[in-house]
C-alpha cells in the first residue's frame, strides 16, 4: 500500500545541534504507527516539521505523494494533517462548544463568514454534538475551557484535532500528565478512533504504545534507529539496550 504521509531524508539543525538527521519514514494509510524514543530524541521536533511549525534544513515531506514541505501550518490542516500538543494548546476563554464549532466552521470553509451566527449553518451543530459525545465532553460543553478538569482538557485537545477531520492524526503524548484514574478514558477514546484515520502516536508510555500500535519507529538522537512491527521492535536487542531495557527487564 502507498504511504499516506512520508518523509525523505528530513533534516533539522538548530545551530550546531542536529535535531533530525535524514529521517525517512513512511506511514501507511490507516496505520496505527507509534514513534518512540528517549527524552530529547527529537520526537516533538519531528511532529513540528510534519505540521509546518518548523521549516526543515533539508529533505522532503510528502502527503499522498505530493510535496508539502514548505506549506504553512493552516494549509496542511486543510490537506488533512491535524495534531494534538504535548502541552495543551487550547482556547482558555472559549467553551468546548465554541472551540469545536470554530474548527468545524473552518473546515467547512465558513471561517471567514462574518454575517451568520456561529452554528447556524446546517450540519455544524450536528457535528459539534457528535464530537461532544464521542469525546465525553457533554457534561462540560458550556463551561470555559480554562476551568475544565485536566483530563477533560486533554480530551478536548484530541477532539479539536479530530474536528479538523484529518486523514492523518498526530497525537503528541495524548495522556501526558493525566492522573491514572482518568487515563483509561483517553486511551479508550484513542482506541475507538475510526479505522480510516491514519494515526501517528508519539508516546513515552510503553503500555500505551504496545496496546495501540501496529507499527513502531524508534527515534534516537534525531535518527531513525529501528522500525518494525511491535514484536520485532520488542525483540530487537539494540532497542532493548537503548530504550526498552528498563521497561522490559525491570
Amino acid at each position, binding site marked *: 500500500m502507498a504511504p499516506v504521509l512520508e518523509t525523505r531524508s528530513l533534516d533539522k539543525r538548530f545551530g550546531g545541534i542536529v535535531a533530525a538527521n535524514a529521517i525517512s519514514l513512511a506511514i501507511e494509510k490507516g496505520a496505527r504507527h507509534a514513534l518512540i524514543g528517549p527524552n530529547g530524541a527529537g520526537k516533538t521536533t519531528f511532529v513540528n516539521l510534519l*505540521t509546518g*511549525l518548523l521549516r526543515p534544513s533539508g529533505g522532503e515531506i510528502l502527503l499522498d505523494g505530493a510535496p508539502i514541505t514548505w506549506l*504553512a*501550518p*493552516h494549509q496542511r*490542516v*486543510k490537506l488533512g494533517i*491535524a*495534531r494534538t*500538543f504535548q502541552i495543551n*494548546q*487550547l*482556547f*482558555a*476563554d*472559549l*467553551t468546548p*462548544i*465554541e*472551540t469545536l*464549532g*470554530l*474548527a468545524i*466552521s*473552518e*473546515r467547512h470553509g*465558513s*471561517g*471567514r*463568514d*462574518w*454575517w*451568520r*451566527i*456561529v*452554528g*447556524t449553518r446546517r450540519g455544524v*451543530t*450536528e457535528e*459539534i*454534538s*457528535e464530537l*461532544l*459525545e464521542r469525546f465525553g465532553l*457533554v457534561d462540560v*460543553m*458550556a*463551561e470555559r475551557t480554562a476551568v475544565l478538569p485536566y483530563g477533560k482538557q486533554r480530551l478536548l485537545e484530541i477532539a*479539536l*484535532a479530530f*474536528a*479538523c477531520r484529518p486523514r492523518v492524526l498526530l497525537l503528541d503524548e495524548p495522556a501526558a500528565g493525566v492522573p491514572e484514574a482518568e487515563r483509561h478514558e483517553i486511551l479508550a477514546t484513542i482506541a475507538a478512533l475510526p479505522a480510516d484515520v491514519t494515526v501517528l502516536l508519539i508516546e513515552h508510555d510503553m503500555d500505551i504504545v504496545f496496546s495501540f500500535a501496529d507499527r513502531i519507529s524508534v527515534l534516537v538522537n534525531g535518527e531513525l534507529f529501528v522500525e518494525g512491527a511491535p514484536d520485532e521492535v520488542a525483540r530487537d536487542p539494540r532497542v532493548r539496550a537503548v530504550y526498552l531495557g528498563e521497561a522490559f527487564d525491570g
Partner: protein
Amino acid sequence: MRRALQSETALETRTTRYLRARARFGPIEILFWVVAFSSIWLLPTRHLILTETVIWGLFALSLDLILGYAGIISLGHAAFFGVGAYAAGLLAKYELINEPTVALLASALAAAALGFATSFLVLRGSDLTRLMVTLGVSLVCFELANRYGDLTGGADGLQGVTIAPIFGLYRFDMFGHTGYIYCLVVLFILFELARRIVNSPFGLSLKAIKGNPLRSAAVGIAVNGRLVAVYTLSAGYAGVAGALLAQTQAFASLSMLSLERSADVLLILIIGGTGYLYGGIVGALIYRLLQDYLSDLTARYWQFWIGLLLVAIVVIGRDRIGNWISPVARFAAQLGRRPAPTTTAGPEKGG
C-alpha cells in the same frame, strides 16, 4: 438504538440553543439602547456634549475590535480617526461629495485603505512592537498633515467647511440636535454590525487567535488574513468616528490625529472594559461624567484623578473595578456567559 438517536437530537437542540443564546439581544441591551435613544427627547440641552460622547464611544468601539477581539494593541489609532476626519472635511469643503452619509462612507473607505496598507506591519511581533509601529504610523500621518498645510490647513485646521443637509433634508443646526441623532443612529448601526461580526465564525476565529495563535493555525485558520481583515475593519470604524466629528463640527484639525487622542481612546476603552463591545460606549460615558464632575471639583487637575483611576483599574484588575463602577458591564458579561439550558430533553413523548 432509538433511544440513542433521540438523545443525540436533544443534544443538538441544546447545542443550537446555546449558540443562539450567546448571540441573542438581551433585555439589558434593549434597555441600554432605549435609554440611549430616549436621550434625544429627554436631554435636548445636552446634545452637543452627548454627540462628542457618542463619537468617542464609536472610536473606542473601533479599538475594541482589534484589542478586545484580536488582541492587537495600538497607540496610534488616531491616525485612522484623523484620516476619516480630514477626508470628510475635504470632501465637504471642495464639494466633492455633498451628501453627508455618502461622504461618511467615503471617509470610512479612506481610513480603511490606510488600515489595510499598515495592517501588514502589526501582524508579527510583541505588544511592544505593535505599540511602536502604530505610534510611528500615527506620527507620520500627523506630520504629513502638518507639512501639507495648503491642503489640510496645517496648525490652523481645515477651515471653511460647510456640511450639506443629510439626504438633502436635515440641516445641521447650531444646537446639535440633528448632529446628535445622526451620530447616534450611525453608532447604533455600526454597533449592530460589529455585534453580528463578533458572533460570526469570523469573530470566533478572532477570539481564538487572541487566545492562542499557535493552535489557531493548527486548526486551519489563516491567522494573518484574519488579522488584516479586522485591522482594516477597525480602521474603517475609526474613520467613521473621525468623519462624524468633522461633519458635526464642520472642522478638522491636527488634534484629531494626535498621540493624545490615541492615548485617550485607549484609556476610555480600558475604563469601560475590552471584549464585550459596550466597553467603548460605557467608557466614553464614564470618562465624560468624570471629566464634568472632577473638573467642577479640581478645575485644572481632573486628569490627576483619571490617571489614578487608570492605575487602579490596571493594578486591581479591570474586571473587578469595571463591575463595581458599571453595572451595564456586569449585566452584559453575564448575558454573554449565560449557560445553556441544562435540561436534557424536551417533553418526553410516549415514554
